[in-house]
């Protein structure tokens, strides 16, 4: 069925803005300011915005040439086929799940802050109960997604722009502390500024929402690139100005304050109402982002399921509400576990890493498609080809590794988790493509091998030829477990297809 194109340039820009203006600014500035870049976060934000814009040029070309539903997944699939598309789909899914978990944590933080304005004693209690609150929020949002909740309209975009504009204007009218916004004396040197750039990068990711909706945009060849550029030109100065005002009113202390940084700045700039206003805005943004992420992750999972990479059960639609309830519940379970961890820094980096990998793949896809399909209709062409997509790939990969130079523990944990999840993704792909019976036979063979090896090693250790494998487990238990493993291995290896 062909989709109806009814969105003009104005709505396209609004869509880009509604994707980009989100909860991230309420939660990601703290760590970047107090631990990574100090007041140079303004430069880091500008850099993140410009790199995002550079990458978005590739999105523009591909989005205008292939305005079908599917976004990155479709581009990468056309360029490299199913295998790489599956990997990119998984990373995109993971990035959505990490972002959703971050949104749940942000909501809890803002809720705790809002309550603390009225009953100060309650904040520490709420922060202690953060995992439970975050899980409850995910459950409520997942339930409303299953019931087919409507998304907030464009009024929310204007409300946010108005709040931020008041904050910036009030801040600039005050006498701000002179800021050293250029990366001259950042906390951790130039690597700190780059690490902050990576960390705050998710603030601009939402702009991709525009590309994903290219199928509904009139004259996508013109409106998609224009929409992306206009959204970027509005968002980058807006975020940089917010950071400029916030760093100007909150001095860089030795210790990080317990309350969210932006809320404290709002409290200073707009005494009496600022903190509460930003807390409510942060909560609304978090809930909206959580709902969007749940929808995005379920649509990615269903797309991969439709292509046969994931179980078909993910395609199940709720009889009454007509929503993909299995995909929503499956994603929600992951989000609940991640949000219960509550580690904002880890989640921020993890969401960034997943998306950066997809960005690199999208830029590579553009390079590949220019060679593979030179006569493909391209209403918009990336300027300065091939330097722009090559720069996009280099920047994405560089941003991935930069926090490692800083030896940032959170970045290292996120990268290690990313490598582990990549391994899991590749294993899933091969196992899925292998078929159940071949997998059963393979597992049977391995089980048989492990069982026999355990028996041999236990006999050798009993005869004192080698040291015991697990000294605290008695040999007879190991032998019983080995026997079960051998029998199960034989049964699995001889399974009939």
């Amino acid at each position, binding site marked *: 069925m062909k989709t109806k194109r009814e969105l003009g340039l104005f709505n396209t820009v609004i869509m880009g803005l509604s994707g980009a203006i989100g909860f991230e600014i309420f939660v990601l500035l703290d760590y970047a300011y107090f631990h990574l870049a100090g007041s140079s976060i303004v430069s880091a934000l500008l850099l993140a915005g410009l790199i995002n814009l550079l990458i978005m040029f590739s999105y523009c070309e591909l989005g205008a040439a292939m305005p079908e539903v599917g976004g990155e997944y479709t581009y990468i699939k056309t360029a490299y086929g199913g295998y790489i598309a599956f990997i990119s789909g998984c990373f995109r899914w993971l990035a959505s799940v990490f972002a959703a978990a971050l949104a749940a944590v942000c909501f809890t933080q803002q809720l705790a802050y809002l309550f603390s304005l009225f009953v100060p004693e309650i904040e520490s209690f709420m922060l202690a109960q953060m995992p439970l609150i975050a899980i409850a929020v995910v459950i409520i949002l997942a339930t409303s997604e299953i019931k087919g909740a409507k998304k907030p309209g464009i009024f929310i975009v204007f409300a946010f722009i108005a709040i931020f504009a008041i904050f910036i204007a009030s801040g600039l009218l005050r006498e701000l502390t002179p800021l050293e916004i250029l990366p001259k004396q950042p906390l951790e040197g130039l690597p700190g500024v780059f690490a902050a750039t990576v960390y705050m990068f998710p603030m601009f990711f939402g702009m991709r929402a525009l590309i994903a909706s290219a199928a509904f945009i009139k004259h996508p060849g013109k409106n998609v690139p224009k929409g992306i550029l206009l959204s970027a030109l509005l968002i980058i100065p807006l975020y940089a100005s917010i950071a400029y005002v916030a760093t100007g009113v909150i001095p860089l202390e030795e210790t990080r304050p317990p309350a969210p940084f932006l809320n404290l700045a709002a409290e200073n700039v707009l005494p009496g109402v600022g903190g509460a206003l930003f807390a409510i805005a942060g909560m609304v943004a978090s809930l909206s982002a959580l709902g969007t992420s749940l929808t995005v992750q379920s649509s990615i999972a269903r797309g991969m399921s439709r292509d046969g990479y994931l179980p078909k059960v993910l395609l199940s639609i709720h009889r009454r509400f007509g929503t993909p309830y299995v995909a929503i519940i499956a994603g929600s379970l992951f989000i609940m576990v991640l949000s219960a961890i509550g580690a904002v820094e880890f989640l921020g980096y993890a969401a960034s890493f997943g998306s950066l990998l997809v960005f690199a793949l999208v830029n590579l896809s553009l390079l590949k498609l220019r060679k593979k399909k030179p006569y493909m209709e391209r209403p918009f062409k990336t300027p300065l080809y091939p330097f722009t997509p090559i720069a996009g790939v280099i920047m994405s990969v560089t941003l991935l590794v930069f926090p490692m130079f800083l030896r940032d523990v959170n970045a290292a944990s996120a990268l290690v988790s990313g490598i582990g999840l990549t391994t899991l993704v590749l294993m899933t792909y091969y196992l899925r493509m292998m078929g159940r019976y071949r997998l*059963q036979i393979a*597992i*049977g063979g*391995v*089980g048989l091998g*492990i069982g026999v090896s355990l028996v041999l090693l236990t006999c050798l250790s009993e005869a004192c030829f080698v040291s015991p494998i*697990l*000294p*605290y487990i008695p040999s007879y238990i190991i032998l019983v*477990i080995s026997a*079960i*493993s051998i*029998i*199960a*291995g034989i*049964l*699995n290896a001889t*399974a009939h297809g």
Partner: protein
Amino acid sequence: MIVGIMQSMVAVLIVIFACGIYFNFFDIQTSLNAAVESLYLHILALFVFGFFSIISGLFLVHEWLESR
């Protein structure tokens, strides 16, 4: 079917045991008296073997259910 259930149950116990060592429930690490450097290797081995055995056992149970 019996082998499948037994293997899965033993595997679940192994994973619980590995979790117990990792989180040091009831001060289990001290009572096992194992060297710290080899402890994490043991935990990894127990986890891998446990998860692998769970899948293997579930395959047998699934096959039995299909054949009924």
